[in-house]
Every structure is written in C-alpha cells, then in structure tokens.
C-alpha cells in the first residue's frame, strides 16, 4: 500500500521559482511540500549567468519586463545581500554594432526609470581593462551578480524552518483526477524506486521548461517551445562589473562575474526537448568568437566549464489575459477545467520573487485564505553550510585552513568539515548523500582539475564515515563523472585536454570505471 502524505500545497520543481513559492507560502502559514525530480536548480535556475538585471537589457524590447527587473533587483539587494555582489554593469558597443540602437539606449532607459550613465570610452577602458580598445560607446548601469544556488538553498532553508518540506529525487509520475480536481499525485522516489501519494488542496507546477509535461499529466495542454542557451565559465574573473554588449540581444553578449570566475553567454538554439542537452563544440566556438569582439582576452582564456539550460517559451496557444506580464506566465488551470492546478513558468531569475508572490496570491485565493505576502520586506536569512557554492568564496581563507583542516578539494579549498556539514544537511532532509548532491552544494570538483582527485577523496571519506556502504558508491562516482563531463567535453583543448587525459588515465585506465562491476575478470 502506498504511503499517503497530506498537505495544503504541493509545489513541483525545485528551481528559483519553486523554492521561492515554498518560502512565500510557508511564511503565510500555509503547509507546503516541494518535490524535485533531481535536486535544487537542476533546470534553468542552475544554468544561467547569475545576473541580477538592472533592466537595461530589456528597454528596447520589453519595457514592462525592464521595469519589473529594476524594482525586483532593488528589492533583492535589500532582502538577500548575502546572495548578491553589487558589481555594477556596463553596456558597450564595438564597431559594426547598430548605431541607431546605441543612440536610442539612454532615452529608453530614462523612459523605464532605469539609471544609466554615459561614459567616455577611454574611461570605460580604464574601469575594465579587459574591454576591447575599439569601443564606440559605453554606459554604466546598476547590474549585479547573484548566486542562484545559494538563493534557492536559502529559500528552501527558510521554508523548512517555517515547517515546509522538501523531497529531492522525487519525480511526479501522475495526477489522479476526479471531475474538475486533482485528488492526489503519485510520486516516485528515484533512489529507492518506491512510490507514494501526496494529497494536496492545490498543486503548483513550477517546472520551467517541463511545464508542458506536468500539465499534460493533469490533462491540460500548454504548447511549449524550447530554446537552449549555453554559457562558458572562465578560469579566472575577467572584469569587476557585468559587461553587456550594447546591441539587440544576441549570442555571447553578456559577461558576468561570479566570485573568482566570469561567465560568458549565451546562445539561443531551438531544441525538441528540455532533456539530455549539453553544450556543443559549435556553440562554444560561437561564444568565444562573438565574445572576443567585446573582450578580446576571451579568445585565449582557459575555460573550466560549459553548461546550458532551456528557456521555457510558451507557444502561441496562450491567451493574452492569462499573461500577467510578458516576462513570465502564470496559468490558472481552472480555465482549462482543473480547479486546483496552477502553472508558473517563463520569467527571469531577477523576477523569481515576484513570480512566487503572484503564484502564492493565486494559491491562497483558491484556498480561501486571506493572506499577505511577506517576502517583499522580510530579509532572507543566511544559513550555515550554504556558503560554499559561490565560486571561490573560500579561496581567501585558504591559509587559515592549511595544516589544520583536512582538505578534500584542493582546487577550490573545500575542507572535510564543509563536506561533513553538507552531508548532515542532506541527511536532515532524509536524503542519501552522494557525490552529485555534495557537488551541487559545494565548489567540490568545479576547479581546474575537473574533479579527478577530489571525487575519489570525498568518496573514500564518505565510506570511512559510514555515509556510504555497499557498492553503490562507485555508481555515484560514475554519475558524478558523467554529469561533470557534460560541462567539459566541448572545452577540451590546451591544458584542459591534458587535465582531462589525466582524469581518464586515473578513472578508466587504473580504476576501470567504464567496465562496470559485473564485467571484471
């Protein structure tokens, strides 16, 4: 007999929006469970620039979205400063860029109420020496960098602290409907292969690019279009500020600092499905060749990782009145004959809080609960153990650890105590730690050695601590290596290829991990 859990709201999807909704509803006193088929930020929330938009990027194309970005950006800087680095940003143009677009830019910003200061191109070059010496225009705006992993972890932690529940590796298998309502959801635990039921008053899909699949389980059609975007991480930070190409949105036109690294992207490629995607060699070359027009050093830099996400775009099927804004898409499926089902998709990382607020408002209205959103004013608490995702946050403290602390990942200086704290956090959620779930919550394996040694050190540490028993540890290592590989394979030339060869020598040549347990002599 399947176990049944009851709750007021079931949120599906552990990205920025889903965790934001969990926090928002928990703060309103609503009982909420969030399920995620993989782990936090597995979709587009974990595969973006980490850019907190000033709004200037959208002044030409979508003034409403631009203004939303501006106000939400200001708000997040107040309530979640530990997730944000206030870098400031530049918009720059190089010869050949559309001069009419450049000329219109300051006026458009003013119209949207977005502060924008024209700069002398020489001054811009002094502010950011990595910029091309051939700039023809430059403006300063209030862009910032935001750590999306930290953000989602903190949102979820705050919800947990208010009584919310989180279940990772929990995949929605089906909705059971009766008349105009979903009566329960059947959930598969992908680690144990057991199914259970969650019975909720309201079901919210915050599944981003997977919104169409989830809606289909409730018998609702959402026509989705998928746009893949790839990004590259440089080995070192290249600029103090966010650098935007001052032109119509295109390939590789934003360079965002993220701690000790920088991120350049993106591309935009229609794909048929949001699953099994990875950055291609052609995309990598396109990003580098485009990006170096703005920042010439991008042509010769060492890149440590490539990654990609899928932008969920709602096809032409949606009706205008259901669009709260052109930025995001909140769908009340009462209009489609399912009264207790809501979809929120689209939007931007910068506006996740607003999306969560609007979705929670609708859910509470359906629940008949008079409630007020508190996330607009209440600071997002900073919890311990969430400080390890920001690239390089621990590097400066290296010497204080040295000799005293057992170091697990030498590239990113992740000590054993950090791994233990993360494992304890995973255990608290009744989940089983493995290399992937630890890597998600730390910088482990994200340095130049590509996880060759630290993966093995952490694995044996977990065995020694009794956190892993039996042969599944090596399977976890295989999953970790193949997951990391998605981000490496398009970037393997020069020293990165040498490093990757060493990794293959160790993991395949010596340990024979490609051979599988049953294949050995």
């Amino acid at each position: 007999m399947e176990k049944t859990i009851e709750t007021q709201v079931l949120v599906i999807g552990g990205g920025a929006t889903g965790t934001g909704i969990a926090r928002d509803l928990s703060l309103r006193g609503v009982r909420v469970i969030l399920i995620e088929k993989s782990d936090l930020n597995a979709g587009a929330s974990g595969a973006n620039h980490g850019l907190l938009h000033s709004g200037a990027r959208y002044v030409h194309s979508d003034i409403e979205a631009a203004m939303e970005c501006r106000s939400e950006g200001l708000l997040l800087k107040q309530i979640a400063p530990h997730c944000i680095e206030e870098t400031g940003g530049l918009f720059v143009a190089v010869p050949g860029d559309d001069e009419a677009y450049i000329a219109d830019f300051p006026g458009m910003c003013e119209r949207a109420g977005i502060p924008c200061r024209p700069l002398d191109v020489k001054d811009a070059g002094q502010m950011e020496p990595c910029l091309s010496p051939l700039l023809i225009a430059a403006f300063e705006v209030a862009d910032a960098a935001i750590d999306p992993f930290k953000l989602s972890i903190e949102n979820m932690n705050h919800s947990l602290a208010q009584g919310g529940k989180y279940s990772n590796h929990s995949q929605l298998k089906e909705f059971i409907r009766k008349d105009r309502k979903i009566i329960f959801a059947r959930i598969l635990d992908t680690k144990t292969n057991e199914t259970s039921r969650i019975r909720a008053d309201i079901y919210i899909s915050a599944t981003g690019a997977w919104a169409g699949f989830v809606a289909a389980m409730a018998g609702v059609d959402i026509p989705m279009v998928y746009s893949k975007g790839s990004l590259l991480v440089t080995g070192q930070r290249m600029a103090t500020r966010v650098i935007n190409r001052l032109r119509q949105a295109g390939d590789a036109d934003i360079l965002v600092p993220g701690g000790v690294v920088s991120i350049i992207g993106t591309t935009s490629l229609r794909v048929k499905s949001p699953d099994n995607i990875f950055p291609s060699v052609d995309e990598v070359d396109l990003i580098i060749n485009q990006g170096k027009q703005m920042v010439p050093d991008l042509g010769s830099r060492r890149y440590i990782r490539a990654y990609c996400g899928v932008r969920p775009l709602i096809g032409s099927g949606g009706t205008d009145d259901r669009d709260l804004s052109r930025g995001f898409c909140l769908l009340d499926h009462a209009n489609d004959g399912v009264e207790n089902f809501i979809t929120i998709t689209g939007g931007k990382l910068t506006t996740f809080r607003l999306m969560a607020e609007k979705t929670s408002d609708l859910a509470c209205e359906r629940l008949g609960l008079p409630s007020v959103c508190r996330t607009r004013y209440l600071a997002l608490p900073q919890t311990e153990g969430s400080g390890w995702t920001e690239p390089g946050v621990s590097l400066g403290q290296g010497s204080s650890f040295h000799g005293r602390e057992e170091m697990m990942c030498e590239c990113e200086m992740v000590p054993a105590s950090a791994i233990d704290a993360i494992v304890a956090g995973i255990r608290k959620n009744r989940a089983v730690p493995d290399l992937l779930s630890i890597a998600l919550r730390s910088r482990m394996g994200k340095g130049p050695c590509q996880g060759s040694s630290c993966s093995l050190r952490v694995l044996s540490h977990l065995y020694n601590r009794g956190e892993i028993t039996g042969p599944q540890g090596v399977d976890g290592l295989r999953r970790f290596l193949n997951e990391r590989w998605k981000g490496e394979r398009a970037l393997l030339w020069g020293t990165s290829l040498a490093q990757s060869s060493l990794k293959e020598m160790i993991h395949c040549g010596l340990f024979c991990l490609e051979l599988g347990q049953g294949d050995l002599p």
Partner: protein
Amino acid sequence: MTEYRKMDCDLLVIGAGMAGMVAAARAASLGIRTILAGNSGSLIFVSGMMDYLGVYPMEARKSVADPALGLAGLRAAEPDHPYGSVDHEQILQGFDFVKKVLGKAGLAYHLSGGRNLSVLTAMGTLKPSFMVPKTMEKGTRLFGETAEKKSLLVIDIKGLQGFSARQVAAGMEHRLARVIPVTVEIPGISQTIPPIVLAQLFEDPKVQEAFVRQVLAFSDKVDIAGMPAVCGVHNSLGIQQRLENLTGLPLFEIPGLPPSVPGLRLKNAFETSLAASGVTFLSNVTIKDPVFNGKKFTLTGSTDNRELSISAGGVVLATGRFPGNGLHARRERIVETIFHLNVHQPVTRSLWHGTDFLTRQGHLVNRAGIETDKDFRPLNKRGAPVFDHLYAVGSILAHNDWIRLKSGAGVCLVSACAAVDRFHKRRSKAGP
C-alpha cells in the same frame, strides 16, 4: 649567465616517461651512445602496473583473459594499431627486457605466465594487467577459482586520502568469503599525509612495528591482507617481507590515486639503470628546433641557465601525449610540438569526445597521434617516412586508445624496443 655546450651521440631519446626510459635502456644494452632528455617526473603519475592488452574488443563487456587472443583479434581488425607492427613474441620479449632492467636496478616485478592478472584497486574494482610490482603479486592470486573460500583483511591508513578499506571491502564482499576492513594509525600523522611521504615513513622500523601491532590481532581471522601501495620507497619487497614475517600474514599492495609510490619506485629504478649503463640523462631539458643536415640531427636543449646543442645520428620521439606536451591541442587542431609532424586526427573538434565520459567505445581524440611505418618511423602526408632515423614510440602513436584497451605499458615498451632495435640494425648495416 647562459652556458653553451655541444654534445654528440648516436641516438637522442626525447621524453623520459615509460617509453623513453625503455628506449634508452634498450639502446644502452646494444652499446649505442645515447642521450636521454626529458622530465622523468611524469612517472609518478603511472600506476606502476604494466598492461599488455586488458580489454579487446572495447565493446566486450569484460576484460580479456588471454592477451595473445586479444592481440590476434586486434591485429586483424585494426592493423594500424601500434601492435600491428609487432607480434606476441616480441611483446613478451619486451616485458621480459623491462623486467630484467628493473630487476638489475633492485625493483622486482612479477610477469604473468600468459594470462592477464586481476589487480584489486583502491576503488574496490579489479583491473586486468600483465606485469605488476612483486609487492602486488599475491593479490593477483586472490581471485582464482577458490576465491569464495578466502578471507581478506583490507588495511587503510589514517590520513592517507582516497583510500578507504571499507570502500575496497564493499567492492569485494560478493567475491570472497569474508572481507574485514581495518584502519591503522601511524603515530605522528596529524590530518593528512601524501602517499610518498607515508612510504618514506614505512622505512622506519618503529612505524613498521606500530603497523604490525595493529594488524596482528587479525592474523588468525584472515588468509591474506591488502594495504595501500606505501610499503617503502626503497627496498619495498624487503619491507613487505619483514611485515609478513612479523604479522604472519601474506601481504600485497593495492594501487591507488597518483602521485603513486610504485611510479616513484619505477622512476628511481630507471634512473639507477641509466646511470649504470652509461646513458647521459639530461633531466628537465626542453628540446626544440630540430635541424637535419642530410646526415645528422641537431637539436637545441635548454634549461633555465644552459643552452645545449645536441647532435645525433637518430632520434626517438617519446614525448607522450597531452599531459607530457608531446601533442598539443589547439582549439582547431592537434599539433606535434617538436618536429611539427603530421598528426592523424578527427576532422573537427566536435568529434574528439563522445557525450558519455565513461563510454566503452572510447573517445576519438585518444586515437589521434603519429602514424608510422612498420619500423615506427613517422610518416608524412604522402605516407613516406619523414626521416630515415626518426622514430616515434609510446603513447604518442596513433590508433592507440591505451586507456580503454589497457595496453599502455605494453605499447610503450614494445615500440621502444622495436624502434631502437631497427635503428641499431639499419645503422650496423650502413657501417659506422
């Protein structure tokens, strides 16, 4: 001040990894005046095990028991593989040669009688190999027909990262009657210790005795014990025998994460052998700018404060692949770094790697490299040898995914021996 010096030799071997070391030793054994230039430091990244052919074909979901059978299949299906230029007997002779060279330098190896050996690794997996350090030999006998009756003690050492006895035990539980993991604490180790430093500690009788005291309690409970490969840097076999006598247990070493002690022992033994056989070893010299005057090669060797002009009748290129910088991958194509030789490679970078890291088929980039004739002489684009006396050996050779085939050392040693033999033969024919 930069110092200039001219040197002359019959054969210049470039690269001091596995292939370069064997080529130099082979040349010395034939009485060839030899200079070896390169960085032997890379040897501490090898596992110390020497493979012949552990897997063939790659798609077979298991290792091959008899490498001679695998070789027959490989030679028939992939004649361009470096093994296509040699036969089983030559490969066996190559292993035997290396075993003797190392043995003379005080490092004992165990050569298989014909079938692949199963070596237990620090991951708890088994790896097929063909010649292993004598200190690993007893472990390879563990997985025979009576395996399910045997009980094994797996020892790890507190502070040695990347080696967990529990993990090794978890991988082996289903194969053996009983596996007991135990952690030994060596006095004076706080936090972590690199394997090479730990191996040096093991040369201290006090450390050996502390180890024995903690293992002794298990002597009656198990048939045999495995421990990390840290049983001393020098005289590892002697130390192992002492530990066996004191514990009353047969012991074997388990290879793990580099930098590796067996690799360091190899490096030391090869260097001892070179010094004894009269090879001039220029360590940490970068070789560049080759010129051929129709008779002899002249190359420049440089260090921080020296410039050498080296003249040689023949050159063996044993510079390795990407980690050794014998090959260098630009974003658009792969190049050979010293002679700018033609590199066989996929047409575009998007074909270099598959989408699955652990793919059984291997990645095409690993088959890129230098194509040669049957005498291991690099070919130009028209398929002719670039020079009469330029040879390429070891992992730089094309059509050789040694990581997947488990054939790394075998290809290195047989190509090194064959190339040097053929240089010797051709030169003797031509007269001095």
